[in-house]
């Protein structure tokens, strides 16, 4: 705004106030839907989970094969999965394998190694769901955290946010790169089936069922064989609790799990976001404050210029007087 060009004072002042009112109304209109979208917590009491008993897993990796089959991914013959050489390298879930089994040394019995299946943990309060710029991730009431390819813009913020470092991305694809992660066979579950990995497991290392019952079952197992199990259910409270739960005989950080606090990953960032935006009151107040400041400083400037004009006028009159007086004196 060029101050030299203010045509009529009263007019511009009215415009000014009108403008602020319009923006305020617009902002207030926005706030309702935004706040509504943020406040959803739809977890079902009898949501499903899966309990992995790492003391039972034999590392046959049939779950990897079944998972790939269920998600229509290219996969070699099931026999090739018996090759235990892959265990020499620690692997993470990837674009080609949404779940992987790793092998760790067993301090209690060197002949029987510990095998650990890993995949998305399906957090109760997932960081990816909170972080995703377009809401492409969602936590379904029954447990699975699913990703919607139609929304995703490929920003990879989910990967920055995930405390378990699970989602992976197609770095080699120029068009329509995907985000990959276990979806807990959400489609199969809808049809009444159990997840493919649970279905195929020959030693029943994975138990599928309502999460609350799984926790009870896990506690029973620990009570029955305290010499085998650590008295700890990984996932019960990690990152605010996860749908997938683990039992083990060896400290979890030594078998590929990150040490996490009980706080849900999105907790702090969401309270900051909601604090800054609290029904758009803080930004709207800032807008009003700045508007007030701008108006006041403008008024002040107008008064200043008026005063300086008055002073000029007075000086002019005085000068004329002086000249007059001098003329008379002569």
């Amino acid at each position, binding site marked *: *705004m060029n101050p030299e060009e203010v045509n009529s004072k009263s007019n511009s002042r009215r415009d000014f106030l009108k403008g602020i009112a319009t923006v305020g109304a617009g902002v207030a209109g926005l706030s309702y839907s935004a706040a509504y979208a943020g406040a959803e917590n739809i977890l079902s009491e009898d949501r499903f989970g899966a309990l992995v008993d790492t003391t039972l897993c034999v590392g046959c990796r049939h779950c990897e094969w079944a998972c790939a089959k269920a998600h229509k991914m290219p996969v070699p013959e099931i026999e090739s999965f018996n090759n235990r050489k892959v265990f020499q390298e620690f692997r993470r879930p990837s674009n080609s394998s949404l779940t992987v089994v790793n092998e760790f040394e067993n301090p209690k019995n060197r002949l029987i190694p510990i095998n650990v299946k890993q995949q998305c943990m399906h957090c109760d309060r997932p960081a990816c769901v909170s972080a995703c*710029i*377009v*809401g492409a991730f969602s936590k379904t009431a029954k447990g699975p955290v699913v990703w919607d390819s139609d929304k995703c813009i490929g920003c990879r913020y989910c990967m920055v946010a995930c*405390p378990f470092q699970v989602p992976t991305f197609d770095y080699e694809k*120029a068009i329509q790169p995907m985000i990959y992660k276990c979806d807990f066979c959400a489609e199969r579950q809808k049809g009444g089936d159990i997840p493919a990995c649970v279905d195929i497991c020959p030693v029943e290392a994975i138990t599928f069922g309502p999460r609350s019952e799984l926790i009870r079952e896990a506690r029973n197992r620990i009570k029955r064989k305290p010499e085998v199990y650590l008295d700890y259910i990984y996932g019960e409270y990690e990152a605010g609790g996860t749908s997938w739960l683990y039992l083990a005989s060896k400290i979890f950080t030594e078998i590929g799990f990150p040490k996490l606090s009980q706080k849900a990953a999105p907790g702090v960032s969401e309270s900051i976001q909601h604090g800054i935006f609290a029904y758009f009151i803080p930004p709207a107040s800032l807008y009003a404050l700045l508007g007030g400041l*701008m108006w006041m*400083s403008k008024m002040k400037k107008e008064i200043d210029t008026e005063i300086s004009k008055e002073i000029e006028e007075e000086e002019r009159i005085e000068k004329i007087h002086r000249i007059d007086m001098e003329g008379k004196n002569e």
Partner: protein
Amino acid sequence: MNNLTLNQISHNSHLPSQVKFKFFTPGVIILCLFALNGLVFLAGRFLFGIGSVTNLNNFYPWGLWIGVDVAAGVALAAGGFTSAALGHVMHKDEYHSIVRPALLTALLGYTFVACGVFVDIGRYYYIWHPLVMWNGNSALFEVGICVMIYLTVLYIEFLPLVTERFMGRVKMWGFLKIFNPILEFFLRLTDKTINKVMFIFIIAGVVLSTLHQSSLGTLMVIAGDKMHPLWQTPVLPLLFLVSAISVGFPMVIFESILASRSFKLAPEMHVLSKLGSMVGPILGIYLAFKLGDMFIRETFVYLKELTFPAIMFYSEMIIGVIVPLIMFLNKKVLQSSKLLFTASSLVIFGVLLNRINNFITAYKPPYAKVAYYPSIGELSVTIGFVAMLVLFYRACVMIFPVITQNHNHVEIAKTKSKVIL
């Protein structure tokens, strides 16, 4: 305004006018080469995917492009909203000569931030999705929306420069001639209406900036323990906002001195030293918050040993905050264009390093086998973008009335440059 007043304005030494200077110099040609090199790697990214030119992987999904092109880019474009607040909201007329250069920097800066986002996201053709698919919980959503709106606001704020320059002078050649009256009509319409509503956009610009500058800090909060405790703190949004405000004026000073050197004009020391005098206190506030946060969370324990993060933290704080803070509080520094330029450069370096540290140094994901470092391709694209920004800036100040040139000063500068030569 009619032609007559326009002509008068271009002769008035206290109003901005377009710089008359040759575009190509050896420096400009070098910049063109850097820009071209960046474009070559960009072509690779769009043909063969992000992985073909970057060192990003499933553990390090964000790298140089997000840390520098986007996060540091937004911070360094903060001169736009700080000078708008000073010149327009507070009506401090003595700063009017810096408002337009700062506006142009912000406009180009944010345009390249948008370009940075465009090349970094995997599905660039879905960049409009956040407009219709909302997630109010996501800090990134807020940053995205605010940046989109603010970029629009910046272009609206730039419109008066377009009308001032081209109204009554629309002369397109050939068959485009028929569009001349239409364009002229729209320019006049814009000119008539824009000044009455401009204050809405100016205030909106300041509000939007405070919002997304801080939310940019919220971005990494959700990474939790994956971020080094020296940087991971719930007050990150506050630190980001204050550091962005603190780098606003140094950036204006930096480019003003650089532009006057490049175009052989005398630096506007009377405005710049006044601007500089405001930087010290803001840096002081930033330092207080940063140290306060460090003592409350007791993160100084990580500074005892000279690990890589500790060294980066020390450099950011000492070279980028404490040294320039002392410099800006010194009257001698404020009156010397060389020292003022040095102090401003240090603040810019400090904020740049802070953003790199927050997004790259501090980020320690689980399971990563090797630490991330930027590839030649990533560096080329980032440098290319910076080169393009400078080239666009040079072109814009030659086309539009951005820089206030005091003609008396020009004469002085000319004689001075002769003496130096």
